[in-house]
């Protein structure tokens, strides 16, 4: 239990770092949000980011609903979604911990969009995935889940 919690906190810290350093924090760099943030998507791993920065601690939250399968028959297409009933969510991020670049997708939501988005991502191997929600008042909340990627048939 303790070890799990520590791991979660570690991930949390690294996530905050990733977002802060790369101008993804709402209010920090609104203007940048309009364009694709190269650096954010180049981050090689959560650990890399953790090393570089250490600010902000996102909290794991039951209010964030991460939709992901327990097991994926093929890592090329893994459905991932995030939703929350919390008010004022401005941004949703979807990450895959063990991918070469952790961040898969970022969504900037206007007031007209429900905090409920879904897409599909590639996963190179079994990994934790994260859904992160950032509110207008800079609360950073996340949910995580392990998705098992199985080996395929025949030629595998």
């Amino acid at each position: 239990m303790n070890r799990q919690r520590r791991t979660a906190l570690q991930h949390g810290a690294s996530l905050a770092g990733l977002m802060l350093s790369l101008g993804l924090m709402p209010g920090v760099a609104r203007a940048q949000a309009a364009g694709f943030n190269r650096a954010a998507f180049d981050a090689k791993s959560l650990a890399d980011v953790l090393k570089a920065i250490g600010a902000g601690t996102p909290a794991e939250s039951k209010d964030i609903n991460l939709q992901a399968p327990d097991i994926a028959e093929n890592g090329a297409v893994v459905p991932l979604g995030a939703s929350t009933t919390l008010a004022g969510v401005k941004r949703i991020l979807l990450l895959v911990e063990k991918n070469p670049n952790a961040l898969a997708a970022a969504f900037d939501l206007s007031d007209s969009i429900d905090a409920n988005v879904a897409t599909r991502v590639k996963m190179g191997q079994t990994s934790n995935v994260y859904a992160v929600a950032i509110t207008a008042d800079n609360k950073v909340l996340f949910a995580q889940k392990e998705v098992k990627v199985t080996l395929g048939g025949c030629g595998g």
Partner: protein
Amino acid sequence: MTARRLAAALLMCGVAFAAQAQPSTADGIARYREMLADGNPADLFEAKGEALWKQKRGPKGATLEQCDLGKGPGIVKGAFVELPRWFADTQRVQDLESRLLTCMETLQGLDAKAIAETPFGRGEQANMEALAAYVSAASRGMKMNLPQAHAKEREMFEVGKRVFFFRGGPYDFSCASCHGEAGKRIRLQDLPDLTKNPGDGVGFAAWPAYRVSSGELWSMQRRLYDCYRQQRFPAPGFASDATIALGVYMGVNAKGAESIAPSIKR
């Protein structure tokens, strides 16, 4: 009863049952497939195929709208669930792809031989797969109903059965090695028993399909080509008689199965 007693026992031990309950692998995979079913990228290929069907192309600058897929020129709906079938004009039993090839040649003036020799997913073969998606989609929800009235159709069924059971290659595999018995799987992939009707939307009634692993739309021709690759056989020619005979065998066996093509597959 036993399950309830077990649950009670676990609770008494202070262990939350829910935390222990691991959904089975099969349930997990089923859930994964369910999540993918809504939003099948095969839709993209279907749309592309429809545009190609209606587009004037080739040296003759014609559309495929007069293509006879077996139910008369221009009739697309219901054609897929009756293919392969005998065609009097070509004096051949043809499957969907070989018939499209005929139409591309006769109506549009395209070079059928060159298309047959093009690798899958490239050039006109990519168009062929989109067309296959479009034509099959027009029969979605209909039941497989291949004709067997013509002697050549019956002959192709018998030949197809023999091809299906033909063992060869360094691994001694035939189609039947994997698809001759119900309830089997390779790794986690369920294998339909293609010697009988494997059920609605399974096996022959599920192809063409969007392949998640390659992100491409595979027609039955491509499905068979890759089966033979994994059987360690030499390569079957595109629209060759062996592949068409297999189509007749599997299609006739699937009589009454509801077509869900183009589906989505691992």
